[in-house]
C-alpha cells in the first residue's frame, strides 16, 4: 500500500501531464493539490523521474504501460473496465499491478429495539460491527462479447485502517487473459452491500500498471514504431512513388484546353475578311473598317478564329481605328 494524496482530477489528467505543470509533491493524504492530477499520472511521473535520475529500470524492464479504468454501473454495481489492447506483441509482461483507493466503511448501523424506560431516554444504536470486508473480482472478455466474461480471479481485501491507495499483484490474471487473447479486463470491488462506488470521485478510480520488457526496443529504429505518428506518405494514403489516383486526389484538375469563350485582346469583327483575292492585297484601313463601331459578331470557334486571325495578321498588320478628334490629338502629341 502506498499513502497517496486524495486528489480531485479531471479525466483529462493526461492533458495536465502534457501541460507540464510539475506535479505537486504529495504531502500525505490530506494534501489536496490545487492543480488536479490523478494518482495514475502522479505514479507514472514518479517512475519517470526515478529512471531519469538514477537510471533505475522500472520494474526491471524497459516499458511501463498504464491503463485508466472506465466505470460502468451494471446491475447497480460499479464495474471498472480496462482496455489492454495497446500492448505491443513484442512486450513481454513482467509484472501487472492493480492500484485502487479504499477506505473502511461500516454496514448501516442497526437500531437496537428501543424501549422507552424514561421519557428522555434516547434510543441507543448498536455499536457498528467490524468494517465490511471487500472482495476484488476480475473477469476478462474479448472485444466483442457482451457477457460478463470469464472469471479470472478473486481476492479478499482486508479493510484498511483509513482511506489509502493499495496495490495488488495481478500478473497471473493479466498474463492468462492476454494468452487467451482477451484484452478487456473488468474489475469489481464487491462488498455484498449497496455499492458506495457510485459516490467515488473519478480521481480515485483504480488503474492498472503493466511492467514489461519490449524485446523490439533494441531494433535500430524502435523509437519510430511508437513515437513517429505521422509519415510523409500517410497523408495521401497512396503508396510511396505511386501517382496520386485522380479519383482520390481532392484537387480539381483543370483542363488545359479553354472550353468557354476567352476574353482575349482580339478585337471583335476581325474574323470578317473581304473575299480572298488571288493575291494578297494591302487592305487600307478604311476598306477594312468602314465604320468606327462595329456590331459584335457571333464568335466562331477558337481554332477557326486563330486560323483566320493568323491569315489576317499575315496579310497586314492591323491599325486600330479611332475617331478623327482622337487622331488629331494624337498627331498633336
Amino acid at each position, binding site marked *: 500500500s502506498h499513502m497517496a494524496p486524495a486528489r480531485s482530477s479531471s479525466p483529462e489528467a*493526461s492533458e495536465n*501531464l*502534457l501541460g*507540464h505543470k510539475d506535479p505537486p509533491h504529495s504531502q500525505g493524504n490530506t494534501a489536496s493539490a490545487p492543480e488536479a492530477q490523478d494518482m*495514475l*499520472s502522479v505514479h*507514472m*511521473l514518479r*517512475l*519517470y523521474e526515478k*529512471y*531519469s535520475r538514477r*537510471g533505475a*529500470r*522500472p520494474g526491471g524492464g*524497459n*516499458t*511501463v*504501460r*498504464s*491503463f*485508466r479504468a472506465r466505470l460502468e454501473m451494471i446491475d447497480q454495481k460499479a464495474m471498472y473496465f480496462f*482496455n489492454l*489492447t*495497446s500492448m505491443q506483441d513484442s512486450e513481454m509482461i513482467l509484472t501487472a499491478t492493480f492500484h485502487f483507493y479504499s477506505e473502511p466503511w461500516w454496514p448501516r448501523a442497526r437500531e437496537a429495539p428501543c424501549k422507552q424506560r424514561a421519557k428522555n431516554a434516547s434510543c441507543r444504536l448498536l455499536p457498528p460491527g467490524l468494517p465490511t470486508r471487500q472482495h476484488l473480482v476480475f473477469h476478462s472478455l474479448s472485444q466483442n462479447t457482451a457477457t460478463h466474461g470469464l472469471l479470472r480471479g478473486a481476492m479478499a481485501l482486508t479493510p484498511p485502517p483509513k482511506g489509502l491507495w493499495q496495490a495488488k499483484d495481478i500478473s497471473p490474471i493479466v498474463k492468462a487473459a492476454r494468452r487467451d487473447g482477451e484484452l478487456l479486463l473488468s474489475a469489481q470491488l464487491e462488498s455484498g452491500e449497496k455499492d458506495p462506488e457510485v459516490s467515488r470521485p473519478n480521481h480515485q478510480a483504480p488503474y492498472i500498471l503493466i511492467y514489461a520488457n*519490449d524485446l523490439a*526496443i*533494441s531494433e535500430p529504429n*524502435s*523509437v519510430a514504431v*511508437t*513515437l*513517429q*505518428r*505521422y509519415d510523409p506518405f500517410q497523408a495521401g494514403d497512396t503508396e510511396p512513388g505511386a501517382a496520386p489516383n485522380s479519383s482520390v486526389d481532392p484537387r480539381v484538375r483543370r483542363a488545359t484546353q479553354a472550353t468557354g469563350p476567352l476574353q482575349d485582346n482580339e478585337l471583335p469583327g476581325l474574323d470578317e475578311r473581304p473575299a480572298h483575292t488571288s493575291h494578297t492585297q494591302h487592305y487600307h484601313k478604311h476598306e477594312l473598317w468602314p465604320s468606327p463601331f462595329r456590331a459584335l459578331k457571333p464568335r466562331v470557334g477558337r481554332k477557326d478564329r486563330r486560323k483566320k486571325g493568323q491569315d489576317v495578321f499575315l496579310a497586314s498588320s492591323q491599325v486600330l481605328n479611332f475617331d478623327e478628334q482622337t487622331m488629331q490629338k494624337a498627331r498633336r502629341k
Partner: protein
Amino acid sequence: QWDEPRVCSRRYLKVDFADIGWNEWIISPKSFDAYYCAGACEFPMPKIVRPSNHATIQSIVRAVGIIPGIPEPCCVPDKMNSLGVLFLDENRNVVLKVYPNMSVETCACR
C-alpha cells in the same frame, strides 16, 4: 560550429521534440542533449578517434591510393546512452519507455 576540431569528434546537438512535432504526445522530456558525430577520419588517425582495425586498414589503402575510389572511414557514434520517454499512446494511456541509443557518449572512426 566553426571552431570545431577537424578530426572526428562529438558535437553538441539539443533536440526539442516540439521541433519535430512529437511534443503533442510526449510528456517528458521536452528536449534532450542528443549530440552527433562529425569530422575527418583521414590517415594517420589519432588514437582519440578509436579506429577499428578495419578502419585503420581502409584509411591506409586509401592513402596509398593504389585502389581508386576508396572513401575514408566514417565518423560515427561509438558509445551511446538510453533515454526514458513518458508519452501518451494512441489510446491516450500514459506509457514510459526506455529507448536505447538515443544520445551520443563517444564517437569513433568505422
